[in-house]
């Protein structure tokens, strides 16, 4: 297995605040990789650095061997990086199908109209959004919005898919469906990187887990390994169990 995503000494500071510091990790091909950590640990900043909404202060990000740290988001998307947002942001004024079609038409260069239609249809079907394809996005509930968010990302034909807390706000039964979906996406050969607060989801889904705190790597390993790590227990799990 080769690394789909190789992050080296990534730094991002906002003025005096060091949001991400000296972060390095590899995500292997076909892996489901979780990033966890307390609020403010720099998880979403890291995801924004990966997808290009933020440019790193220094450091390197390689997507399948290609340096992308300074590329704009659309170039990274063309190279095979997909992203679903935590706060769902469907395009208003469009139906579900039109939203997904944007990803299918522009996610990869040189996709024909017919091929874009096929990809969009496939993404809708995978996420069980087919019946809602002509619904205006304003009429969707939260679960449907989250599915749409994933459908759009899938329509861009990603090699690496970044998911930002897609389970947040879902009921347990819904979260279980979402877990199955993510797993089936991986089974189709897509590498998945996700941020998650719901620990059972991390346990069920992640092959490996990166724990962040204060913008740094605290530990990396399997779920069992990181949860047994005293540093992690102190920084994160201990605190959250008291909630």
């Amino acid at each position, binding site marked *: 297995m080769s690394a789909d995503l190789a992050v080296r000494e990534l730094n991002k500071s906002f003025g005096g605040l060091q949001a991400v510091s000296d972060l390095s990790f590899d995500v292997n091909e076909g892996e489901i990789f979780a990033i966890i950590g307390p609020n403010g640990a720099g998880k979403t900043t890291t995801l924004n650095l990966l997808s290009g909404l933020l440019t790193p202060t220094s450091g390197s990000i390689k997507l399948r061997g290609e340096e992308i740290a300074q590329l704009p988001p659309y170039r990274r*998307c063309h190279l095979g990086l997909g992203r679903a947002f935590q706060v769902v942001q469907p*395009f208003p004024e469009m139906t579900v199908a039109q939203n997904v079609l*944007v990803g299918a038409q522009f996610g990869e260069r040189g996709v024909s109209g017919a091929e874009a239609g096929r990809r969009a*249809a496939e993404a809708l079907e995978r996420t069980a959004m087919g019946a809602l394809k002509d619904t205006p996005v304003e009429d969707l509930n939260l679960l449907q919005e989250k599915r749409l968010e994933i459908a759009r990302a899938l329509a861009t034909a990603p090699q690496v898919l970044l998911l930002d807390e897609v389970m947040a706000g879902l009921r347990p039964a819904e979260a279980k469906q979402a877990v199955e*979906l993510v797993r089936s996406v991986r089974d189709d050969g897509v590498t998945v990187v996700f941020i998650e607060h719901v620990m059972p989801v991390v346990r069920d889904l992640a092959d490996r887990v990166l724990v962040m705190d204060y913008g740094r790597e605290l530990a990396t390993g399997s779920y069992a390994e990181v949860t047994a790590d005293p540093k992690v227990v102190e920084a994160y799990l201990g605190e959250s169990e008291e909630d």
Partner: protein
Amino acid sequence: MSARGSVPKVEAADVTPRRRAGLSRDLIFTLIFAGLLLFAPTLLRALFGQASVSYLSLGIRAVALAVLALSWDLVARTGQLSLAHAAFYGAGAYTTAILLKNFDAPLWLGLPLGGIVAGVLALGLGAVTLRLYGIYFAIATLAFTEVVKAVVQELPTAIAGGTAGVNVAPLFRPTFVPGEMERWEIAFLRNQNYFYLYAGLLVVAILVSVLVQRSRLRSAFTAIRTNEFVASVMGVNPARNKLLGFVISSAIVGVLGALEAHRLGSVIPEGAFAVHTTVLALVTPIFGGLYTTIGPLLAAGFLSGIEETLKRSLAEGYLIVYGAVLVISILFMPRGLVGLFDRVTNRRRREGEERP
């Protein structure tokens, strides 16, 4: 979220907008509309005789307004508020004026060249400013208009005429044949020829608008307008698409400016770069319905008609009433004429459904 048995299978054809069918429908409408424009002068002449001269002038003004509105709407579709349309209009007008005054150029060269100069200016301005968001882009374009106007004014008088402007030769000089035609028919022929030129430009503007609306550019433009960050993450290049809309729009307006310079016979900086042009460019599509082809078209016809009627019945102060009509309509029709028609037809449809 797993695939359940009850989930209906989605076919690619269900997802792709019926683009081709929609496109051919739009093209047929455009063709019919072009045919109407072709017969309009003859029809007006048969109906109104000598009075058709002024009706044709009104027609030319309405067509010019429609071109302005359609092209402005192209930029609006990408979420940008351009206040530079007077600059591109003026650039086109001055291109042909300076060309004819200083060079032994063919009479008609100014029309395409006016479009090219305006397009190149838009490319330069857009490359620098389209990274700005919302109001900052608008302010930059407004400032640009003033800069271009100042530059033209400060050019040596021998080249661009300074504040006094430049005379521009007419494109048509119909010859009077005594005994075979009446005096007014000279004016009619002149207006008819200009009308056809303007109508041709309008058909081009409609085609551009329709093609954008029926291609994947619509997807890209709408996505950028409603959420530029997400659009970019999904592979849409915001800068390139915004620039594309801006340059095409400005080039069309440049040709319009060049045409107007010939028709009106002269250009002066205050007229060619008037803020009024920019205001008309944005008010008309807003009145008609933004991000549509039919909205700006309807509004241009409607507003030209209202303006003319008010001008004839009120003379002085008609602009105040005209302004009031605009403000009130925009307040009560947030989605313009198109939105109003949608509401009416939807209500009728709903009433129809309620009946057994």
